[in-house]
């Protein structure tokens, strides 16, 4: 049987400051009918570019410099636009990473769904609508009959991602390209989307290219996995073989990330708490987001706050930083109450509590050079000037493992995602703090880079005796760095305690749900989990 998609020796170039730079360097990819191929690699590996190229498309500023892309025997490189347009949407479909950005906010879901089949002349509008409802049902969306008549902003992120998958299937395509469809979702939602996508692909017999940087996800979805690094192919093998026996060092390093464990703690230093939150209730307007939240952070330790989006994790951070005044309760730092608007706090207190944001991109002013980003807190809090300031900036850069002379004059736009996050860490460190809030600091980064950040934070904690409040929805991160865990749901603390206790049963039901939703590297994990949950529901009904 001939392959559905055959990409061979594909070269794609990007326009740079000095001519064209190759970003995909002669990669081949074959997909048979009905086969799911996973593409993995860190950011900048060329995964998305390759995925788009499978449709004969490259983003503006890129060009195909060589090689061939054959889809069902037809050559797509250099094919006329009319032929490509006929293929796209009808025989090849694409599911984007951020469906919230990919849907047109001014159209109802079903209108966008029907546009493809009607324009391609596959179905009439009425048929397409009926089909859409059937697909929504299959994707296990709530109220399949009516959900299509809502606008994109009226449904949740996970539902939107499923609606987009349904839309991709509207014309029964032979090949669907999934570009990180679950990366922006939290673990409990991810499960639903993954299982819906997997069943749908299976039932329709579509082939798929599944792009992700999460190995555990690819293990559930793909028959075969291909690893990319900086535009070149590292290795390719059937999923089980790849998981059991990776051949290349790079692949092995990808596998090893999840096993990061922090340095052992000295138990003697644990006792007194540096920060206590007592019965805090806070919110925006009349509706409280936090309800009676209490926990404490011990000096030199890491407390992880976990929960899905909307559980009040980030609001907790805002209360501690004084950006949001609690309506009830108080926050104590070394037994001193922290004034509610942060402006009223003494400068020394502002210095000692620092925060690192989730998105380093928006947390760095694009017009401030590295020197100014780190220099400002030095000047502001510690009164350093001139040579002393310069020396300290260089020291801090060395501390975060960036070569000072190379980086000191750069703008944030000239740094990679991981380097930006390191810079944010350096900015927090510049204030010489005792306590740092890390708000999802690794969730926007891919695993290898994220691991580097975690190692850095761990080393800094050891050397400087820092205390962390680590906000995250990623339980793998919690498992690797936390001493204590606080689980939040809908603004309440549902469970808290030392990490080892939290990860051994019995759990609170919500903790159980969170824990069991973290993908594992075992390819059978998703099937088994769904089986277990179904059984549990069955038992519940019987009882």
């Amino acid at each position, binding site marked *: 049987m001939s392959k559905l998609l055959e990409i061979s020796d594909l070269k794609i170039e990007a326009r740079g400051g000095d001519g064209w730079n190759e970003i995909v360097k002669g990669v081949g990819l074959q997909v048979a009918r009905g086969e799911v191929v996973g593409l993995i690699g860190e950011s900048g590996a060329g995964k998305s570019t390759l995925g788009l190229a499978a449709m004969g498309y490259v983003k503006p500023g890129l060009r195909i410099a060589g090689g061939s892309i054959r889809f069902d025997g037809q050559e797509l490189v250099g094919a006329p636009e009319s032929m490509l347009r006929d293929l796209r949407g009808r025989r090849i479909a694409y599911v984007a990473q951020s469906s919230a950005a990919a849907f047109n906010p001014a159209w109802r879901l079903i209108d966008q769904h029907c546009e493809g089949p009607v324009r391609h002349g596959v179905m009439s509008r009425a048929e397409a609508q009926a089909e859409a409802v059937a697909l929504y049902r299959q994707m296990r969306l709530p109220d399949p009959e009516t959900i299509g008549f809502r606008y994109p902003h009226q449904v949740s992120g996970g539902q939107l991602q499923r609606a987009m998958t349904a839309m991709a299937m509207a014309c029964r395509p032979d090949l669907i390209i999934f570009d990180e469809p679950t990366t922006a979702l939290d673990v409990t939602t991810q499960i639903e989307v993954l299982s819906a996508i997997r069943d749908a692909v299976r039932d329709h017999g579509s082939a798929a290219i599944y792009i992700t940087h999460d190995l555990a996800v690819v293990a559930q979805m793909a028959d075969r996995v291909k690893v990319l690094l900086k535009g070149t192919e590292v290795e390719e093998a059937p999923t089980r073989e790849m998981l059991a026996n990776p051949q290349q060092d790079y692949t092995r390093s990808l596998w090893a990330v999840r096993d990061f464990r922090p340095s052992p703690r000295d138990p003697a230093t644990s006792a007194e708490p540096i920060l206590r939150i007592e019965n805090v209730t806070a919110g925006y307007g009349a509706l409280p987001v936090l309800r009676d939240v209490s926990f404490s952070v011990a000096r030199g330790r890491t407390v992880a706050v976990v929960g899905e989006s909307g559980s009040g994790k980030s609001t907790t951070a805002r209360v501690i930083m004084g950006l949001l005044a609690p309506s009830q309760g108080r926050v104590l730092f070394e037994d001193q109450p922290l004034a509610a608007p942060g402006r009223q706090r003494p400068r020394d207190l502002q210095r000692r509590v620092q925060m690192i944001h989730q998105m380093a991109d928006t947390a760095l002013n694009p*017009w401030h050079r590295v020197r100014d980003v780190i220099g400002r807190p030095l000047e502001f809090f510690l009164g350093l000037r001139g040579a002393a300031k310069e020396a300290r900036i260089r020291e801090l850069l060395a501390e975060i493992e960036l070569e000072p002379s190379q980086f000191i004059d750069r703008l944030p736009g000239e740094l990679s995602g991981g380097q930006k996050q390191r810079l944010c860490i350096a900015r927090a460190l510049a204030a010489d703090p005792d306590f740092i809030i890390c708000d999802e600091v690794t969730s926007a980064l891919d695993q290898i880079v994220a691991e580097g950040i975690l190692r850095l934070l761990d080393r800094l904690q050891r050397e400087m005796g820092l205390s962390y409040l680590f906000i995250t929805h990623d339980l793998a991160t919690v498992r690797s760095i936390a001493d204590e865990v606080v689980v939040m749901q809908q603004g309440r603390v549902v469970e808290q305690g030392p990490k080892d206790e939290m990860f051994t049963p019995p759990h609170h039901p919500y903790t159980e749900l969170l824990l069991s939703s973290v993908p594992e590297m075992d390819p059978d994990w998703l099937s088994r989990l769904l089986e277990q949950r179904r059984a549990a529901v069955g038992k519940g009904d019987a009882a």
Partner: protein
Amino acid sequence: MTRYLVLLRHAPLMAKIGVLLIALYAVTAIFAPWLAPYPEAAVVGPKYQPWAAPHWLGTDALGRDVLSRLIYGARNTVGIALVTTVLAFLLGTTTGLLAATVGGWFDTLASRVVDVLMAIPSLIFALLILTITGTSVVALVLVIAVLDSTRVFRLSRAVAQGILTMDYIEVARMRGEGLGWIVRREVLPNAAAPLIAEFGLRFCFVFLFISALSFLGLGLQPPTADWGSMVRDSAKLISFANFSSWNAATFGLAPLLPAGAIALLTLAVNMVVDWVLHVSSGLKD
């Protein structure tokens, strides 16, 4: 400074032409008394002379040298337009950024005052005020600057509101930075690109506004040379022109000279602004 010179060397041709033209206008304006062959307002010959030596662009209805008046006009018109635009931007940007950053009653008050000013047609409003105050250069500059600053206020406030939602502003606020730092160091650099583009556009509008006022007789007063009133004075000549010979044709071309000077400068400013915008947005990526 050297950074900008390097940037200029790599600039596209259109931008280079724009910079060159603006430099030419600037030199003309600054060195007008030395460049002009005759004084600004003196009658130096018979009226309506054709374009020939010693009056290379002829003379006007009173017998003043047109070339000299064009050169002085650069100084008067461009200089006043520039001062007015700068003033409008100082006023508009400062209040706009402050209104967005401070918020609360200051924002409400400033926004409503601006709404009221914008509700009145600006030309009528300017005519009204200038009739009351009299047409001095200072009054002209102040009135146009205040009227124009309303649009700058709107723009800078809207841009700043977008910037203020960014995390780096939150970081600065958590550090306890004062208002001055936040507005000047955090917000302003990020608002610069759209403001620069607006500056180019505003400059052209102010320029035309002054010309329009001069045309109506409430702008710069004679005998001061300015391009707007030069167009007005010679506009009717077009209809009497006879294009059968070069000498006669120059008579009809007279109003096109100041109009062309205005058009060319407008074009040059926009070419440079386009490039500046391109460079500054490119640095962001």
